[in-house]
């Protein structure tokens, strides 16, 4: 249970980090809360760890409340705990604080980065699904330059992204919540803070007469990559107080394709998708009325 030997470098600029990452077997170390367990269990044995923690300029949360680029930009060194307590960010995109409160335990949130959890692309991570549900993107820096990659092009498979070769994800962008839109997030786990057996994040948008115009959901620990499911058909045009959320839950159950494992069977996960969808949509719709 000790990591295999490796070389360690802690560059103080992004360029240096990218140069180091061009070497074979070099890997980015951010919060280490997913990588160090993998090293200790010898599931990974990189030749070099490139610790990005000393690179300046990667630790800010930039909130743009409205207009062009409205949303929240989260730097690569922002820890889960900072997003959890960021009132301004929560105002513009409430799913951030709601989801991070479900990420692991306080001691892990103190060190683990939100961008790291996205780069790690674990289908049981909360923030990958939140990036998808909000229609977000990441900025990927390579020796050839920096570019934005949309969430759908980023996630390729479990623990796999479309980024290969030397690269640092420098930030994640979560677009602002549109007007008349509410959100909710809920998960079922064996113990508070553990990886979810199943989780759901949803958004509901209403028109001026409080009738549903959009209902969308993204699930945690369901499927191989984060997906966004459009449930609008089940409730479109219905008034917020009498909308048939049960029908939306039933529709969601037909759209997902969960796997069974040690923690839950596929059928149980599908059941939870229905239950969580129904509950969260109702809450999100109530909230949408006041936004």
């Amino acid at each position: 249970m000790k990591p295999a030997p490796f070389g360690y470098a802690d560059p103080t600029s992004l360029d240096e980090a990218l140069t180091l990452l061009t070497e074979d077997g070099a890997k980015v170390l951010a919060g280490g809360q997913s990588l160090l367990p993998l090293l200790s269990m010898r599931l990974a044995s990189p030749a070099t760890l490139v610790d990005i923690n000393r690179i300046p300029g990667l630790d800010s949360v930039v909130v743009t409340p409205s207009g062009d680029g409205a949303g929240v930009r989260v730097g690569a060194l922002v820890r889960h705990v900072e997003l959890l307590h960021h009132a301004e960010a929560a105002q513009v995109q409430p799913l951030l604080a709601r989801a991070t409160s479900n990420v692991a335990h306080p001691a892990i949130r103190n060190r683990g980065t939100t961008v790291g959890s996205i780069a790690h692309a674990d289908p049981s991570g909360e923030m990958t699904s939140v990036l998808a549900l909000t229609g977000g993107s990441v900025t990927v820096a390579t020796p050839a330059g920096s570019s934005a990659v949309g969430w759908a092009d980023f996630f390729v498979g479990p623990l796999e992204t479309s980024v290969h070769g030397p690269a640092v994800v420098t930030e994640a962008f979560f677009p602002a919540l549109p007007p008349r839109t509410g959100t909710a997030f809920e998960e079922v786990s064996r113990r508070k803070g553990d990886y979810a057996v199943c989780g759901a994040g949803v958004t509901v948008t209403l028109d001026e007469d409080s009738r549903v115009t959009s209902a969308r959901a993204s699930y945690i620990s369901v499927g191989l990559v984060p997906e966004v499911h459009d449930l609008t058909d089940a409730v479109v045009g219905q008034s917020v107080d009498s909308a048939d959320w049960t029908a939306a839950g039933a529709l969601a159950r037909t759209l997902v394709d969960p796997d069974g494992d040690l923690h839950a069977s596929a059928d149980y996960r599908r059941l939870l998708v229905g239950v969580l969808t129904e509950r969260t949509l109702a809450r999100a719709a109530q909230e949408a009325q006041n936004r």
Partner: protein
Amino acid sequence: MIVSTERTISVTVNGVPRETTVPARRLLSDALRHDLQLTGTHVGCEHGVCGACTVLVDGTPVRSCLVLAVQVDGKAVTTVEGLARDDGRGGEILHPVQEAFRECHALQCGFCTPGFLMTMAAGLEARDRSTDITEDEVDEIVGGNLCRCTGYANIKKACRHAAGLMKEAAE
């Protein structure tokens, strides 16, 4: 730009400046126990799940098995050995969480105790001490640590008791 397989690090541990040379792969938990001979920090799972190895880095609780020793160069680390205060007469004054653990019989074998103490001390120090602690707060504070002996009831009791002691002290 240097890729090192070994480094000499300077760390302030429990207020005392220490220097030690460690291989890059040395976990902070092992550096504390093996290199600095501070065996109060316990290692259970060594992959972040049990919380037994929790220490404070610059005042913030972290799992020491999920931090490399080379990453704490220049930082301050507090372990369970540094939780009690000097009483100025050669003895020590227990931290309220230690007091509460004793009072509430919150340990049996004691393996998980250092991790619980560090997590709880930091959790309680961070909260608003003018209010009574809620059950949700207690669950949030102790929820990340595992104990195989006590069944948690007395650990949660100790958390409430310590919160009470700290509230009184703040009044």
